[in-house]
Protein backbone atom coordinates (compact mmCIF):
# COMPACT_ATOMS: atom_id res chain seq x y z
CA UNK A 1 0.00 0.00 0.00
CA UNK A 2 2.02 2.99 -1.20
CA UNK A 3 -0.31 5.54 0.37
CA UNK A 4 0.10 4.00 3.78
CA UNK A 5 3.88 3.81 3.58
CA UNK A 6 3.93 7.43 2.38
CA UNK A 7 1.91 8.35 5.44
CA UNK A 8 4.30 6.31 7.56
CA UNK A 9 7.37 8.12 6.35
CA UNK A 10 5.60 11.46 6.70
CA UNK A 11 4.81 10.61 10.31
CA UNK A 12 8.40 9.54 10.87
CA UNK A 13 9.75 12.81 9.47
CA UNK A 14 7.31 14.72 11.63
CA UNK A 15 8.48 12.80 14.71
CA UNK A 16 12.15 13.38 13.96
CA UNK A 17 11.84 17.07 13.08
CA UNK A 18 11.76 18.52 16.64
CA UNK A 19 14.85 16.60 17.72
CA UNK A 20 16.72 17.69 14.59
CA UNK A 21 15.76 21.26 15.39
CA UNK A 22 16.80 21.05 19.05
CA UNK A 23 20.01 19.10 18.54
CA UNK A 24 21.23 21.13 15.57
CA UNK A 25 20.39 24.53 17.02
CA UNK A 26 21.35 23.83 20.64
CA UNK A 27 24.23 21.36 20.30
CA UNK A 28 25.78 21.54 16.83
CA UNK A 29 25.45 25.27 16.20
CA UNK A 30 26.89 26.25 19.61
CA UNK A 31 29.87 23.96 19.03
CA UNK A 32 30.32 25.54 15.57
CA UNK A 33 30.32 28.99 17.16
CA UNK A 34 32.95 27.85 19.65
CA UNK A 35 34.99 26.53 16.73
CA UNK A 36 34.76 29.92 15.00
CA UNK A 37 35.67 31.80 18.20
CA UNK A 38 38.68 29.57 18.73
CA UNK A 39 40.06 30.76 15.39
CA UNK A 40 39.36 34.45 16.03
CA UNK A 41 41.18 37.00 18.14
CA UNK A 42 40.21 38.83 21.29
CA UNK A 43 40.66 42.59 21.12
CA UNK A 44 42.17 44.41 24.12
CA UNK A 45 38.62 45.49 25.02
CA UNK A 46 37.41 41.91 25.22
CA UNK A 47 35.39 41.79 22.01
CA UNK A 48 35.96 39.02 19.50
CA UNK A 49 36.91 39.65 15.90
CA UNK A 50 39.30 39.16 13.04
CA UNK A 51 42.05 38.32 12.18
CA UNK A 52 41.62 34.58 11.90
CA UNK A 53 44.54 32.73 13.42
CA UNK A 54 45.68 29.62 15.22
CA UNK A 55 47.22 31.67 18.01
CA UNK A 56 44.77 30.42 20.61
CA UNK A 57 45.82 26.87 19.92
CA UNK A 58 49.53 27.63 19.96
CA UNK A 59 49.06 29.41 23.30
CA UNK A 60 47.81 26.10 24.68
CA UNK A 61 51.26 24.65 24.02
CA UNK A 62 52.66 26.99 26.68
CA UNK A 63 54.18 24.85 29.49
CA UNK A 64 51.70 26.36 31.98
CA UNK A 65 48.69 25.08 30.02
CA UNK A 66 50.34 21.84 28.98
CA UNK A 67 50.85 21.14 32.67
CA UNK A 68 47.10 21.66 33.25
CA UNK A 69 46.22 19.22 30.49
CA UNK A 70 48.73 16.65 31.69
CA UNK A 71 47.53 16.98 35.28
CA UNK A 72 43.92 16.50 34.16
CA UNK A 73 44.85 13.41 32.16
CA UNK A 74 46.78 12.05 35.12
CA UNK A 75 43.96 12.59 37.63
CA UNK A 76 41.34 11.21 35.25
CA UNK A 77 43.51 8.13 34.63
CA UNK A 78 44.05 7.59 38.36
CA UNK A 79 40.32 7.96 39.03
CA UNK A 80 39.52 5.50 36.23
CA UNK A 81 41.97 2.93 37.55
CA UNK A 82 40.66 3.24 41.12
CA UNK A 83 37.06 2.94 39.95
CA UNK A 84 37.88 -0.25 38.03
CA UNK A 85 39.77 -1.73 40.98
CA UNK A 86 37.00 -0.90 43.44
CA UNK A 87 34.17 -1.63 41.02
CA UNK A 88 35.14 -5.06 39.76
CA UNK A 89 34.70 -6.99 43.03
CA UNK A 90 31.38 -5.24 43.57
CA UNK A 91 30.23 -6.13 40.05
CA UNK A 92 31.34 -9.71 40.65
CA UNK A 93 29.41 -9.81 43.92
CA UNK A 94 26.26 -8.47 42.28
CA UNK A 95 26.47 -10.88 39.35
CA UNK A 96 26.57 -13.76 41.83
CA UNK A 97 23.82 -12.69 44.13
CA UNK A 98 20.85 -14.35 42.48
CA UNK A 99 17.48 -12.80 43.21
CA UNK A 100 18.91 -9.77 44.97
CA UNK A 101 20.71 -8.58 41.82
CA UNK A 102 18.16 -5.96 40.99
CA UNK A 103 18.15 -4.59 44.52
CA UNK A 104 21.94 -4.23 44.55
CA UNK A 105 22.01 -2.72 41.06
CA UNK A 106 19.43 -0.16 42.12
CA UNK A 107 21.55 0.65 45.17
CA UNK A 108 24.49 1.34 42.86
CA UNK A 109 22.47 3.43 40.40
CA UNK A 110 20.44 5.42 42.93
CA UNK A 111 23.14 7.82 44.17
CA UNK A 112 24.51 8.25 40.66
CA UNK A 113 21.31 9.65 39.22
CA UNK A 114 20.17 11.44 42.30
CA UNK A 115 22.39 14.45 42.90
CA UNK A 116 25.99 14.91 41.95
CA UNK A 117 26.15 18.28 43.67
CA UNK A 118 24.93 16.98 47.02
CA UNK A 119 27.18 13.96 46.87
CA UNK A 120 30.15 16.26 46.31
CA UNK A 121 29.01 18.49 49.15
CA UNK A 122 28.75 15.48 51.48
CA UNK A 123 32.52 15.03 51.15
CA UNK A 124 33.10 18.72 51.93
CA UNK A 125 31.09 18.14 55.09
CA UNK A 126 33.31 15.20 56.03
CA UNK A 127 36.69 16.54 54.98
CA UNK A 128 36.89 20.19 55.82
CA UNK A 129 38.87 21.60 58.76
CA UNK A 130 35.73 21.84 60.89
CA UNK A 131 34.28 18.73 59.23
CA UNK A 132 33.26 15.47 60.81
CA UNK A 133 36.54 13.56 60.43
CA UNK A 134 38.67 16.35 61.83
CA UNK A 135 36.18 17.02 64.65
CA UNK A 136 36.24 13.39 65.73
CA UNK A 137 40.02 13.13 65.57
CA UNK A 138 40.42 16.38 67.51
CA UNK A 139 37.99 15.27 70.21
CA UNK A 140 39.75 11.94 70.54
CA UNK A 141 42.97 13.84 71.05
CA UNK A 142 44.65 12.04 68.16
CA UNK A 143 45.52 15.32 66.48
CA UNK A 144 45.85 18.88 67.73
CA UNK A 145 45.56 20.67 64.43
CA UNK A 146 42.94 19.81 61.84
CA UNK A 147 44.38 17.72 59.01
CA UNK A 148 44.31 19.43 55.59
CA UNK A 149 41.97 16.88 54.04
CA UNK A 150 40.02 19.17 51.74
CA UNK A 151 41.18 21.47 48.94
CA UNK A 152 43.89 19.32 47.44
CA UNK A 153 44.23 16.92 44.52
CA UNK A 154 43.69 13.94 46.80
CA UNK A 155 40.23 15.24 47.69
CA UNK A 156 39.49 15.80 43.99
CA UNK A 157 40.52 12.24 43.21
CA UNK A 158 38.36 10.90 46.04
CA UNK A 159 35.39 12.93 44.80
CA UNK A 160 35.80 11.65 41.24
CA UNK A 161 36.08 8.03 42.36
CA UNK A 162 33.03 8.46 44.57
CA UNK A 163 31.10 10.10 41.73
CA UNK A 164 31.95 7.67 38.96
CA UNK A 165 32.18 4.31 40.74
CA UNK A 166 28.73 3.32 39.37
CA UNK A 167 30.11 3.83 35.84
CA UNK A 168 32.58 1.02 36.57
CA UNK A 169 30.13 -1.33 38.24
CA UNK A 170 27.41 -1.22 35.57
CA UNK A 171 29.41 -2.16 32.43
CA UNK A 172 31.46 -4.71 34.38
CA UNK A 173 28.29 -6.26 35.74
CA UNK A 174 26.82 -6.35 32.21
CA UNK A 175 29.80 -8.33 30.85
CA UNK A 176 29.93 -10.67 33.84
CA UNK A 177 26.24 -11.31 33.43
CA UNK A 178 26.68 -12.34 29.80
CA UNK A 179 29.55 -14.66 30.65
CA UNK A 180 28.88 -18.29 29.80
CA UNK A 181 28.72 -20.18 33.13
CA UNK A 182 29.80 -23.42 31.44
CA UNK A 183 33.26 -21.87 30.91
CA UNK A 184 33.59 -21.39 34.65
CA UNK A 185 32.37 -24.93 35.29
CA UNK A 186 34.86 -26.26 32.75
CA UNK A 187 37.65 -24.42 34.50
CA UNK A 188 36.59 -25.87 37.86
CA UNK A 189 36.22 -29.37 36.41
CA UNK A 190 39.74 -29.15 35.05
CA UNK A 191 40.98 -28.56 38.56
CA UNK A 192 41.30 -24.79 38.81
CA UNK A 193 40.74 -23.27 42.20
CA UNK A 194 38.09 -20.53 42.36
CA UNK A 195 40.68 -17.77 42.42
CA UNK A 196 42.51 -19.33 39.47
CA UNK A 197 39.26 -19.37 37.51
CA UNK A 198 38.72 -15.75 38.49
CA UNK A 199 42.17 -14.64 37.36
CA UNK A 200 42.53 -16.72 34.22
CA UNK A 201 38.97 -17.08 32.94
CA UNK A 202 36.64 -14.46 34.38
CA UNK A 203 38.99 -11.49 34.30
CA UNK A 204 40.15 -11.90 30.67
CA UNK A 205 36.57 -12.47 29.52
CA UNK A 206 35.49 -9.29 31.28
CA UNK A 207 37.95 -7.24 29.17
CA UNK A 208 35.22 -5.57 27.06
CA UNK A 209 33.55 -4.43 30.28
CA UNK A 210 36.81 -2.96 31.53
CA UNK A 211 37.29 -1.12 28.24
CA UNK A 212 33.77 0.29 28.21
CA UNK A 213 34.02 1.31 31.86
CA UNK A 214 37.40 3.00 31.32
CA UNK A 215 36.09 5.15 28.50
CA UNK A 216 32.88 5.98 30.35
CA UNK A 217 34.78 7.09 33.46
CA UNK A 218 37.80 8.72 31.87
CA UNK A 219 35.81 11.06 29.64
CA UNK A 220 33.70 12.83 32.28
CA UNK A 221 36.63 12.89 34.71
CA UNK A 222 38.85 14.58 32.13
CA UNK A 223 36.36 17.40 31.67
CA UNK A 224 35.24 17.52 35.30
CA UNK A 225 34.54 20.99 36.61
CA UNK A 226 32.37 20.74 39.71
CA UNK A 227 34.50 18.23 41.65
CA UNK A 228 37.86 20.03 41.25
CA UNK A 229 36.15 23.34 41.90
CA UNK A 230 34.43 22.33 45.15
CA UNK A 231 36.80 19.72 46.58
CA UNK A 232 40.00 21.20 45.15
CA UNK A 233 39.27 24.79 46.12
CA UNK A 234 40.91 27.65 44.27
CA UNK A 235 44.27 25.92 44.17
CA UNK A 236 43.51 23.12 41.77
CA UNK A 237 43.34 23.89 38.10
CA UNK A 238 42.22 21.22 35.70
CA UNK A 239 40.97 21.61 32.11
CA UNK A 240 37.40 22.18 33.28
CA UNK A 241 38.41 25.05 35.58
CA UNK A 242 40.63 26.53 32.88
CA UNK A 243 37.75 26.63 30.39
CA UNK A 244 35.32 28.03 32.94
CA UNK A 245 37.76 30.76 33.96
CA UNK A 246 38.29 31.87 30.38
CA UNK A 247 34.54 32.27 29.88
CA UNK A 248 33.79 33.91 33.23
CA UNK A 249 36.51 35.85 35.08
CA UNK A 250 39.21 36.11 32.40
CA UNK A 251 36.71 36.75 29.58
CA UNK A 252 39.05 35.41 26.94
CA UNK A 253 36.46 33.47 24.97
CA UNK A 254 38.65 32.65 21.96
CA UNK A 255 41.25 31.02 24.18
CA UNK A 256 38.59 29.21 26.23
CA UNK A 257 37.03 28.02 22.98
CA UNK A 258 40.34 26.58 21.80
CA UNK A 259 40.75 24.75 25.13
CA UNK A 260 37.17 23.41 24.84
CA UNK A 261 37.79 22.07 21.36
CA UNK A 262 41.06 20.41 22.32
CA UNK A 263 39.17 18.72 25.18
CA UNK A 264 36.43 17.65 22.74
CA UNK A 265 39.07 16.32 20.32
CA UNK A 266 40.68 14.21 23.06
CA UNK A 267 37.27 12.85 24.05
CA UNK A 268 36.27 11.96 20.49
CA UNK A 269 39.61 10.32 19.69
CA UNK A 270 39.35 8.21 22.84
CA UNK A 271 35.82 7.21 21.91
CA UNK A 272 36.82 6.19 18.42
CA UNK A 273 39.79 4.23 19.75
CA UNK A 274 38.14 2.54 22.65
CA UNK A 275 34.42 2.32 22.48
CA UNK A 276 32.74 0.21 19.88
CA UNK A 277 30.02 -0.65 22.28
CA UNK A 278 27.57 2.09 23.06
CA UNK A 279 26.76 3.65 26.38
CA UNK A 280 23.27 2.25 26.58
CA UNK A 281 24.27 -0.10 29.40
CA UNK A 282 24.17 2.90 31.67
CA UNK A 283 20.52 3.69 31.28
Amino acid sequence: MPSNSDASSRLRRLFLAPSWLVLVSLMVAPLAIVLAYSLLTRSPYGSIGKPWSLDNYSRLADPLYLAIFLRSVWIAAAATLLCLLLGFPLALFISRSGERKNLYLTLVILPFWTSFLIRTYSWMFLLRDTGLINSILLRLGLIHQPLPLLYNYGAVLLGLVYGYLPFAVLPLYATLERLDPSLLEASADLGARPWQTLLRVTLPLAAPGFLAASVLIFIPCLGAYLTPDLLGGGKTVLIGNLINNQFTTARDWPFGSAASLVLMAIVLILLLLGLHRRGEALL
Partner: protein
Amino acid sequence: MKRLLALRWLPVYAAGAFAFLYLPLLVLAAFSFNSSKFTVWQGFSLRWYQAAFADTQLSEATANSLIIAFTATILSTAIGAACAYGLWKRTNRTLLGVVYLTLVTPEIVTGVSLLAFFEAFFRYLHARLGLHTVILAHIAFSVAYVVLVVLARLRTLDARLEEAALDLGATPWQAFREVTLPSILPAVVAAALLAFTVSFDDYVITSLVAGVGSETLPMVIYALARRGVNPVLNALSAMIFLGLGALVLISQALTRRAETPGADTK
Protein backbone atom coordinates in the same frame (compact mmCIF):
# COMPACT_ATOMS: atom_id res chain seq x y z
CA MET B 1 47.41 -13.84 47.29
CA LYS B 2 45.26 -16.87 47.68
CA ARG B 3 43.58 -15.69 50.82
CA LEU B 4 43.14 -12.16 49.55
CA LEU B 5 41.21 -13.37 46.55
CA ALA B 6 39.17 -15.92 48.42
CA LEU B 7 35.70 -15.31 47.11
CA ARG B 8 33.96 -15.64 50.43
CA TRP B 9 35.28 -12.19 51.27
CA LEU B 10 33.17 -10.75 48.48
CA PRO B 11 30.06 -10.01 50.59
CA VAL B 12 32.23 -8.25 53.18
CA TYR B 13 33.82 -6.20 50.44
CA ALA B 14 30.41 -5.40 48.93
CA ALA B 15 29.13 -4.23 52.31
CA GLY B 16 32.16 -1.95 52.53
CA ALA B 17 31.60 -0.62 49.03
CA PHE B 18 27.94 0.16 49.72
CA ALA B 19 28.99 1.85 52.95
CA PHE B 20 31.41 3.99 50.93
CA LEU B 21 28.57 4.96 48.57
CA TYR B 22 25.99 5.71 51.26
CA LEU B 23 27.74 6.66 54.51
CA PRO B 24 28.66 10.22 53.48
CA LEU B 25 25.01 10.87 52.63
CA LEU B 26 23.66 9.20 55.76
CA VAL B 27 26.05 11.14 57.97
CA LEU B 28 25.00 14.35 56.27
CA ALA B 29 21.34 13.50 56.79
CA ALA B 30 21.95 12.59 60.45
CA PHE B 31 23.67 15.90 61.15
CA SER B 32 20.82 17.81 59.56
CA PHE B 33 18.91 16.92 62.77
CA ASN B 34 21.69 18.17 65.02
CA SER B 35 20.68 21.06 67.25
CA SER B 36 24.23 22.42 67.27
CA LYS B 37 25.61 24.61 64.53
CA PHE B 38 28.93 22.78 64.77
CA THR B 39 29.92 19.28 63.74
CA VAL B 40 29.39 17.96 67.26
CA TRP B 41 26.25 16.05 68.10
CA GLN B 42 24.21 17.94 70.68
CA GLY B 43 20.68 16.70 70.38
CA PHE B 44 17.79 16.21 68.01
CA SER B 45 16.26 19.28 66.46
CA LEU B 46 14.32 20.34 63.41
CA ARG B 47 15.56 23.92 63.53
CA TRP B 48 17.60 23.68 60.29
CA TYR B 49 14.55 22.39 58.45
CA GLN B 50 12.52 25.29 59.80
CA ALA B 51 15.31 27.66 58.76
CA ALA B 52 15.40 26.13 55.28
CA PHE B 53 11.65 26.61 54.83
CA ALA B 54 11.76 30.15 56.19
CA ASP B 55 14.52 31.27 53.80
CA THR B 56 13.02 33.33 50.97
CA GLN B 57 16.12 33.08 48.78
CA LEU B 58 15.86 29.30 48.99
CA SER B 59 12.18 29.22 48.18
CA GLU B 60 12.64 31.52 45.19
CA ALA B 61 15.48 29.37 43.90
CA THR B 62 13.39 26.23 44.45
CA ALA B 63 10.52 27.78 42.52
CA ASN B 64 12.89 28.61 39.65
CA SER B 65 14.33 25.12 39.66
CA LEU B 66 10.86 23.56 39.60
CA ILE B 67 9.67 25.79 36.74
CA ILE B 68 12.79 24.96 34.74
CA ALA B 69 12.70 21.24 35.49
CA PHE B 70 8.97 20.85 34.72
CA THR B 71 9.11 22.78 31.45
CA ALA B 72 12.35 21.19 30.27
CA THR B 73 11.12 17.71 31.23
CA ILE B 74 7.82 17.97 29.38
CA LEU B 75 9.42 19.33 26.23
CA SER B 76 12.48 17.07 26.20
CA THR B 77 10.35 13.99 26.91
CA ALA B 78 8.00 14.75 24.04
CA ILE B 79 10.86 15.57 21.66
CA GLY B 80 13.04 12.67 22.77
CA ALA B 81 10.29 10.05 22.74
CA ALA B 82 9.17 11.13 19.26
CA CYS B 83 12.79 10.97 18.14
CA ALA B 84 13.22 7.45 19.54
CA TYR B 85 10.06 6.30 17.75
CA GLY B 86 11.29 7.84 14.52
CA LEU B 87 14.62 6.04 14.86
CA TRP B 88 13.12 2.70 15.85
CA LYS B 89 12.36 0.92 12.59
CA ARG B 90 14.77 2.80 10.38
CA THR B 91 17.71 4.36 12.07
CA ASN B 92 19.34 7.61 11.06
CA ARG B 93 23.04 7.38 11.82
CA THR B 94 23.63 11.12 11.68
CA LEU B 95 20.87 11.95 14.15
CA LEU B 96 21.85 9.10 16.46
CA GLY B 97 25.45 10.31 16.19
CA VAL B 98 24.42 13.78 17.36
CA VAL B 99 22.48 12.20 20.25
CA TYR B 100 25.63 10.38 21.36
CA LEU B 101 27.66 13.55 20.82
CA THR B 102 25.50 15.39 23.36
CA LEU B 103 26.06 12.56 25.85
CA VAL B 104 29.85 12.54 25.55
CA THR B 105 30.39 16.29 25.36
CA PRO B 106 31.84 17.37 28.72
CA GLU B 107 29.31 19.45 30.66
CA ILE B 108 31.62 22.43 30.81
CA VAL B 109 31.94 22.45 27.00
CA THR B 110 28.15 22.21 26.57
CA GLY B 111 27.83 25.09 29.02
CA VAL B 112 30.31 27.47 27.44
CA SER B 113 29.17 26.71 23.90
CA LEU B 114 25.54 27.42 24.82
CA LEU B 115 26.66 30.63 26.51
CA ALA B 116 28.57 31.65 23.37
CA PHE B 117 25.55 30.73 21.23
CA PHE B 118 23.02 32.68 23.29
CA GLU B 119 25.27 35.73 23.55
CA ALA B 120 25.97 35.69 19.81
CA PHE B 121 22.25 35.64 19.00
CA PHE B 122 21.09 37.94 21.72
CA ARG B 123 23.37 40.71 20.52
CA TYR B 124 21.04 40.99 17.53
CA LEU B 125 17.83 40.16 19.32
CA HIS B 126 18.47 42.46 22.28
CA ALA B 127 17.43 39.64 24.58
CA ARG B 128 19.09 38.57 27.80
CA LEU B 129 20.01 35.42 29.65
CA GLY B 130 17.37 34.18 32.07
CA LEU B 131 15.08 31.29 32.91
CA HIS B 132 14.28 30.75 29.24
CA THR B 133 17.92 30.17 28.31
CA VAL B 134 18.28 27.72 31.19
CA ILE B 135 15.20 25.84 29.97
CA LEU B 136 16.58 25.66 26.42
CA ALA B 137 19.94 24.43 27.72
CA HIS B 138 18.27 21.75 29.84
CA ILE B 139 16.22 20.55 26.89
CA ALA B 140 19.43 20.36 24.86
CA PHE B 141 21.16 18.00 27.25
CA SER B 142 18.23 15.91 28.45
CA VAL B 143 16.73 14.97 25.07
CA ALA B 144 19.55 12.45 24.58
CA TYR B 145 18.74 10.58 27.82
CA VAL B 146 15.09 10.31 26.82
CA VAL B 147 15.97 9.05 23.33
CA LEU B 148 18.17 6.27 24.72
CA VAL B 149 15.76 5.12 27.44
CA VAL B 150 12.77 5.00 25.07
CA LEU B 151 14.76 3.50 22.20
CA ALA B 152 16.02 0.72 24.48
CA ARG B 153 12.39 -0.12 25.28
CA LEU B 154 11.25 0.09 21.67
CA ARG B 155 13.93 -2.39 20.64
CA THR B 156 12.35 -5.02 22.87
CA LEU B 157 9.02 -4.64 21.04
CA ASP B 158 7.80 -6.70 18.13
CA ALA B 159 7.53 -4.32 15.16
CA ARG B 160 5.14 -6.72 13.43
CA LEU B 161 2.35 -5.68 15.79
CA GLU B 162 2.29 -2.23 14.21
CA GLU B 163 2.44 -3.72 10.72
CA ALA B 164 -0.54 -5.88 11.57
CA ALA B 165 -2.44 -2.78 12.68
CA LEU B 166 -1.53 -1.02 9.43
CA ASP B 167 -2.65 -4.05 7.39
CA LEU B 168 -5.93 -4.01 9.24
CA GLY B 169 -6.48 -0.43 8.10
CA ALA B 170 -5.12 1.71 10.88
CA THR B 171 -3.41 4.95 9.90
CA PRO B 172 0.26 5.22 10.95
CA TRP B 173 -0.78 7.68 13.65
CA GLN B 174 -3.42 5.27 14.98
CA ALA B 175 -0.93 2.41 14.91
CA PHE B 176 1.48 4.51 16.97
CA ARG B 177 -1.19 5.81 19.32
CA GLU B 178 -3.08 2.55 19.90
CA VAL B 179 -0.42 -0.14 19.53
CA THR B 180 3.05 1.16 20.32
CA LEU B 181 2.51 4.07 22.69
CA PRO B 182 0.77 2.01 25.40
CA SER B 183 3.70 -0.41 25.57
CA ILE B 184 6.37 2.27 25.70
CA LEU B 185 4.52 4.52 28.12
CA PRO B 186 6.28 3.19 31.26
CA ALA B 187 9.65 3.82 29.59
CA VAL B 188 8.54 7.32 28.58
CA VAL B 189 7.56 8.08 32.18
CA ALA B 190 10.85 6.60 33.42
CA ALA B 191 12.73 8.79 30.95
CA ALA B 192 10.78 11.87 32.05
CA LEU B 193 11.66 11.21 35.70
CA LEU B 194 15.33 10.91 34.80
CA ALA B 195 15.19 14.09 32.73
CA PHE B 196 13.56 15.88 35.67
CA THR B 197 16.26 14.67 38.07
CA VAL B 198 19.11 15.63 35.75
CA SER B 199 17.57 19.04 35.15
CA PHE B 200 16.80 19.75 38.80
CA ASP B 201 20.37 18.88 39.83
CA ASP B 202 22.37 20.60 37.10
CA TYR B 203 24.81 23.25 38.22
CA VAL B 204 27.64 23.52 35.67
CA ILE B 205 25.62 24.32 32.55
CA THR B 206 22.92 26.25 34.42
CA SER B 207 25.34 28.60 36.15
CA LEU B 208 26.83 29.59 32.80
CA VAL B 209 23.57 30.38 30.99
CA ALA B 210 21.42 31.62 33.90
CA GLY B 211 22.38 35.29 33.90
CA VAL B 212 21.45 37.61 36.73
CA GLY B 213 18.27 37.13 38.73
CA SER B 214 17.43 33.58 37.72
CA GLU B 215 19.19 31.64 40.43
CA THR B 216 18.36 27.95 40.70
CA LEU B 217 18.55 25.74 43.78
CA PRO B 218 21.86 24.10 42.80
CA MET B 219 23.35 27.58 42.29
CA VAL B 220 22.36 28.56 45.85
CA ILE B 221 23.66 25.25 47.21
CA TYR B 222 26.93 25.76 45.40
CA ALA B 223 27.33 29.26 46.82
CA LEU B 224 26.49 28.05 50.36
CA ALA B 225 28.86 25.09 50.07
CA ARG B 226 31.73 27.34 49.08
CA ARG B 227 31.08 29.71 51.96
CA GLY B 228 31.57 27.16 54.74
CA VAL B 229 29.74 25.08 57.32
CA ASN B 230 26.02 25.61 57.10
CA PRO B 231 23.61 23.20 58.76
CA VAL B 232 20.72 24.56 56.66
CA LEU B 233 22.53 23.09 53.69
CA ASN B 234 22.57 19.68 55.39
CA ALA B 235 18.80 19.80 55.85
CA LEU B 236 18.34 20.94 52.27
CA SER B 237 20.59 18.15 50.98
CA ALA B 238 18.68 15.51 52.91
CA MET B 239 15.35 16.72 51.48
CA ILE B 240 16.63 16.93 47.89
CA PHE B 241 18.25 13.52 48.10
CA LEU B 242 15.03 11.95 49.40
CA GLY B 243 12.90 13.70 46.79
CA LEU B 244 15.09 13.00 43.78
CA GLY B 245 15.94 9.53 45.10
CA ALA B 246 12.24 8.66 45.11
CA LEU B 247 11.94 9.76 41.47
CA VAL B 248 14.94 7.64 40.50
CA LEU B 249 13.50 4.61 42.29
CA ILE B 250 10.17 4.99 40.51
CA SER B 251 12.00 5.40 37.22
CA GLN B 252 14.04 2.26 37.87
CA ALA B 253 10.96 0.27 38.83
CA LEU B 254 9.20 1.34 35.62
CA THR B 255 12.19 0.39 33.48
CA ARG B 256 12.55 -2.97 35.22
CA ARG B 257 8.87 -3.80 34.89
CA ALA B 258 9.00 -3.02 31.20
CA GLU B 259 12.04 -5.26 30.79
CA THR B 260 10.41 -8.23 32.49
CA PRO B 261 9.27 -10.59 29.76
CA GLY B 262 5.54 -10.97 29.54
CA ALA B 263 4.85 -7.86 31.61
CA ASP B 264 2.76 -6.35 28.84
CA THR B 265 1.38 -9.35 27.06
CA LYS B 266 -2.28 -9.46 27.76
